[in-house]
């Protein structure tokens, strides 16, 4: 069915926002336990590469997806090992992770760049719902991973806000010493959730190589990982708001394409700037709200600080 331009734009907003949603969810998980991973761009690339390789070698999309998740988790666990176990500086280790990811993903992906995905992520058209006039085609004719991405923040929200375990791990990000005093295994959970977050980020990369582009190219994430980082801050570290941020930022890119094809005169660079300026604004406004509480902000209070027992 032919879609009008605005419908197409909304559709693209969702498509472009999906990898962002995966990535932002993964990073949020890590930040909620207090670990700031600046290198998720590298993890995303590794996921894209590993996912494609896994799918190609096995001709099975499920294996591909799993490879991406496992690779993302393993790669992030390197970072977790450094920052959580060895208490290295998170910024430096994050950069290292990013650079490693750039290099390693290019290396392992070398033989796979000119190949078309044989078993890509398939489209799943939701019966009945897709026939809803106007919005049906926009919302319910996506690749199945899109629906998965949409569900992820809800799952995160449920675990974090509605379970005992979620309470404990949120405490790790707020005040690890207090959490430790009450018996929460700070180090263990930090390690696990940073790695788990990495799996989600890897999935984000796989969505590119196995879903939208259906091929692998060097550095194909072109900065999406960084945008994912911005989304976490933009969302004020709240899972459900990630959806807003991801689709909004995805929408800006879609708007860019739309503007070009409709010959509107919005410089696409301006649209490209908006997510980042928006996030900056959110950060500043947020800090202004907390100005009477020195040191407080919307972020988990212990974000970025290494945990030492007794401190």
């Amino acid at each position, binding site marked *: 069915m032919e879609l009008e331009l605005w419908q197409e734009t909304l559709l693209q907003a969702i498509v472009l926002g999906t990898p962002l949603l995966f990535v932002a969810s993964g990073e949020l998980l890590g930040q909620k336990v207090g670990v700031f991973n600046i290198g998720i761009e590298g993890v995303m690339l590794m996921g894209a590469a590993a996912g494609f390789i896994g799918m190609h070698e096995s001709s099975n999309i499920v294996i591909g997806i799993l490879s991406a998740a496992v690779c993302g988790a393993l790669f992030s666990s390197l970072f977790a090992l450094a920052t959580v176990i060895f208490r290295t500086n998170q910024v430096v280790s994050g950069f290292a992770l990013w650079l490693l990811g750039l290099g390693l993903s290019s290396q392992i992906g070398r033989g796979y760049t000119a190949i078309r995905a044989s078993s890509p992520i398939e489209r799943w058209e939701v019966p009945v719902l897709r026939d809803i006039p106007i919005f049906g085609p926009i919302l319910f004719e996506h690749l199945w991973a899109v629906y998965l991405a949409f569900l992820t923040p809800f799952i995160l929200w449920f675990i974090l806000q509605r379970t*005992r375990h979620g309470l404990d791990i949120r405490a790790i990000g*707020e005040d690890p010493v*207090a959490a430790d005093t009450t018996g929460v295994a700070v180090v263990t959970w930090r390690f696990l959730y940073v790695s788990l977050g990495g799996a989600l980020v890897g999935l984000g990369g796989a969505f590119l190589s196995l879903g939208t582009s259906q091929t692998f190219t060097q550095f194909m994430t072109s900065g999406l990982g960084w945008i994912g980082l911005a989304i976490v801050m933009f969302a004020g570290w709240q899972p459900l708001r990630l959806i807003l941020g991801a689709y909004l930022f995805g929408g800006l890119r879609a708007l860019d394409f739309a503007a070009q094809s409709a010959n509107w005169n919005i410089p696409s660079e301006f649209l490209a700037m908006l997510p980042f300026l928006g996030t900056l604004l959110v950060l500043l406004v947020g800090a202004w709200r907390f100005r009477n509480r020195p040191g407080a902000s919307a972020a988990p209070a212990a974000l970025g600080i290494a945990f030492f027992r007794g401190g």
Partner: protein
Amino acid sequence: MIVGDKTPPSAAAPLVSMRQITKQFGNLTAVDHVDLDVHAGEIHAILGENGAGKTTLMNVLTGLLRPDSGQISLDGSDVSISSPRKALELGIGIVHQHFRLVENFTTAENLHLGWKETPLLAGSKDLDDRTRTLAKQFDLDVEANARIWQLSVGEQQRVAILRTLSRGARILILDEPTAVLTPTEAERLFEMLRGLADSSKQAVIFISHKLDEVIAASDRVTVLRAGSRVNTLRTVDCNQELLAEMMIGRHLDTQPAPPSTALGPAILVGKGIAVRNDRGVPALEDLDLELRKGEIVGVAGVAGNGQRELSEVLTGLRSIDAGQIFVSGQELTNADPADFLRAGIGHIPEDRYSSGLVSSESIEHNAILRAFRDPPIRRGLFLSPAAIKDHAGRLVDAVKVSIRSLRSSVRSLSGGNAQRLLTGREIAAASKVLVAVHPTRGLDVGAAEAVRQALLEARDSGVGILLISEDLSELLSLADRTVVIFRGRLNGEFNRDEYDVNTLGLLMGGSPVEVS
């Protein structure tokens, strides 16, 4: 104030019994063969001044420390409390002065954090409901869905107490609970504790140095002094004088220093100073102070009564909410540290390594910390290496500390030598006033003596010194005049040779006594 009139039946066995507990740290015996019995349904106070061993004793009971000798028994059977976790399992819970609550969480969330009994699936509404149930059970008034940072300190303390009680503490220990409370909140606290002891048969232990509290709120009191147990009495059999005497003791070794030769007019005047501490609780209230040229005024008092805030206010590190400060007639109310320095006020701070000295830097660097802004050390935008070396060298000579090199880091110095350096620097910088806070804390005899000598010399050259110290003997021997600070106000004052131990004890314990 309520009067504790419940006397537990002497026939009943104590809930917890500590026998002959001893704990040493190196050469220091912090706790020396102390016995303590506490019964169910009893409120038992542990009274003592700084360094008496109260906290150490409680650290043993709560599993933070292992005693060197002695035995603890619970319900008649001997137990070994190997860790805080074990203590909690045994039903011993403590609420510290600094409650470890997660500020951004609500009361309900804090209550249920890391707790086995929290249901697996628990949304905020469920947690709130459970919290309210628990609050009712223990008759504690808490706001389930308020965030901790929104609560007053008294309310936060109630949350901490509720958390301890919910996890099954039968013995509730409170460490200086009213240190952070207003008098009204303190009263509410003790009412609540009374109710707890009466209805749930909790054994409540609270550590205090405040005589009025102990008299009003406890059933029995154990007085500790210098690590030993002086006595355990029923509170009805005590009055403040008796307690004060037991707390301080009869003998205070003081060799009074020679009186000042340079006494002059008032050089530092504080009027009606009021300030809040970091938690927003008033730390100083309507405090008047006068310090004369060539005089040492000692400030006695148990830690936590506003001494820290007083020293910060008089050196510009904290701005005051009300009142005025004058130095030599010049108003310095709310000036910043640089102005105070320029006015000739030196500061030997409480934490020598985190503010007075930059421990990672060289002796030279630290030596000029007060002098770097002015010639001869400052030359335009730069510092003169020669002048630095000269200044540092002279300082080191003056304090007679032998060092390898002026460039070696301060960390390489012993605690005593570092303090001597700091003291020497501040005395040199203090042309008018010196605020010295615990200047000999942690020093060996020789270093402490050297510091005291330096203070006396400074006094005799006309500097007015405000000496805040926990060491009563030191205060009484050095000070020309001593004031006692309690709950942010000056409680009493006396000249050298006029002090009376009992009165001093009463004043430090909070009893306002008229002294001529």
